[in-house]
């Protein structure tokens, strides 16, 4: 095959793929702007005849989606901040502090990493119930406040910190806490950034655990609220699409802004042996 012909064919395939990848998202946005009923007209339309924000207004005024948005933001931010703190502390300790049994303990954690999380869900619910944390934001955040994978990634990165640097600071009389704050955290910044994006997106998108723990609809996160909304409003296609846009758009924008770090993050997590 001649090169130019091959090149045109390849781009054609990519173009079709790109349209297929984006079409559902584009239709979601278009339908959210259609007047009521237009998304279910026949023949189906792809673009709104006259764009309207009426469904967004209804979501904010009658269905109080602002509060739901706040819940999602709170849960995702809190989980990200707390898990970054806990994972970086533990990861640093496993990488750089010398204590008996360190490598055996870390090895045991790695073995436990292969256990699929859903097995833990039922007893975890009973445990949170006995702690009075069911239907609280803490019940969503705490179980995710530290993960073996997070500790593992930080440890891998922290191993690159030179021991001499830490020992020199110790000889200068710096305490361990100061060492962590002034030397370790700044050096861990690249891995902390990627981990922060990955954690925030994962928490924002999470469904099953908030669905189980949050029983009061005033505390629902966006995915839980959407799933419950589709039960009552399945006929209101345009309204549901507006809700989906509000859920998807923040993470999509965040990704577009921080794409480089995010993709570095997942390749890091994926290729570490």
């Amino acid at each position: 095959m001649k090169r130019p012909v091959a090149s045109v064919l390849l781009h054609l395939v990519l173009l079709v793929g790109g349209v297929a990848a984006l079409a559902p998202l584009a239709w979601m946005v278009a339908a959210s702007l259609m007047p009521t009923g237009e998304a279910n007209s026949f023949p189906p339309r792809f673009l709104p005849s006259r764009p309207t924000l009426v469904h967004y207004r209804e979501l904010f005024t009658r269905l109080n989606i602002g509060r739901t948005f706040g819940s999602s933001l709170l849960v995702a931010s809190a989980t990200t901040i707390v898990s970054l703190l806990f994972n970086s502390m533990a990861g640093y300790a496993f990488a750089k502090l010398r204590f008996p049994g360190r490598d055996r303990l870390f090895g045991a954690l790695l073995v436990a990493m292969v256990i699929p999380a859903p097995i833990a869900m039922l007893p975890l619910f009973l445990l949170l119930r006995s702690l009075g944390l069911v239907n609280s934001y803490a019940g969503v955040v705490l179980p995710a406040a530290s993960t073996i994978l997070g500790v593992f990634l930080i440890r891998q990165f922290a191993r690159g910190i030179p021991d001499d640097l830490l020992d020199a600071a110790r000889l200068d009389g710096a305490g361990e806490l100061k060492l962590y704050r002034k030397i370790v955290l700044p050096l861990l910044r690249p891995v902390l950034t990627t981990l922060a994006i990955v954690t925030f997106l994962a928490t924002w998108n999470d469904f099953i655990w908030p669905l189980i723990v949050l029983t009061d609809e005033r505390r629902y996160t966006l995915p839980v609220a959407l799933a419950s909304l589709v039960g009552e409003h399945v006929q209101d296609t345009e309204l549901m699409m507006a809700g989906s846009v509000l859920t998807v758009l923040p993470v999509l924008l965040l990704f577009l802004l921080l794409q480089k770090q995010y993709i570095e993050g997942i390749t890091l997590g994926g290729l570490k042996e």
Partner: protein
Amino acid sequence: MAVDRRRVPGEVRAALFFLAPGLLVIGLFFLLPIAASVLLSLTDFDIYALGDVRNVRVVGLRNFSRLLADPLFWTSLRNTFYFVLVGGPLTLSVALAAALLLHSKLVRWKGLFRTIFFAPYITTLVAVAIVFRYLYHPRFGGLNRVLELFGIPAIDWLGNPKWAMPAIILLAVWKNFGYAMILFIAGLQAIPESLYEAARLDGAGRLQLFRRITVPMLAPTFLFLGVLTTIGYFQFFAEPYVMTGGGGPLNATLSTGLLMYKQGFRWWNMGYAAAIAVVLGLVILAFSALQFRIERRRNA
């Protein structure tokens, strides 16, 4: 050395301090519940026990024998395997094809296409499942509209037991292939060009290059993605929860994860649900182990 020895107690104390929060969370909210799950599966923990723990009785393996006799459990397991065994390879195939395209020297605007293909992976599953639910509508949905252009008659995607699972798999492939694609691209970039040049000098054709160099060099990526995709797909839950009213039509999309959720958190049969969780967990572990095994045998 003397300095070292004096410092050690301080460092151990510091280690304890730094490890405590993380290990406490992991131990209390992950490891402990996993062990408790096995114990819970040996009891008849139900809504009465939720009211008063004294109502719990140990029933040994009765939950498991009930499970084996429960046709709904077997249906869910069959559906789950359908999703994993068809959806998994399909996702990785599309991902590899996209990665190869974007790795080609003839292709321009690689960054743009990479971003576009990756975008669905970022989206919220519940939200896009709802979007697809409308796109699958037999009369108004966009998919049938596109198929119509090719003369394919309308399909009741989510209402027909035969088509509901393929519809859910299509959503999963659309949403997830971008992630695997990124890792495949990273894997492709790590293959030294000299390998191909040497083989080309030996007269190897395009297909041979792919089979003898590309595929073997990507083996670690295949293994990682295979295990990861399998683990994730075995737990699929939100798609049937949102799209098919909880596993319909006629339980054609009822997954084992969804059955566990319904038994445990809707009907509060937590002992029975724990048995489902333990079996699902063992299936996932066995499958991961199997993939590592195959990879090791291939290397031997």
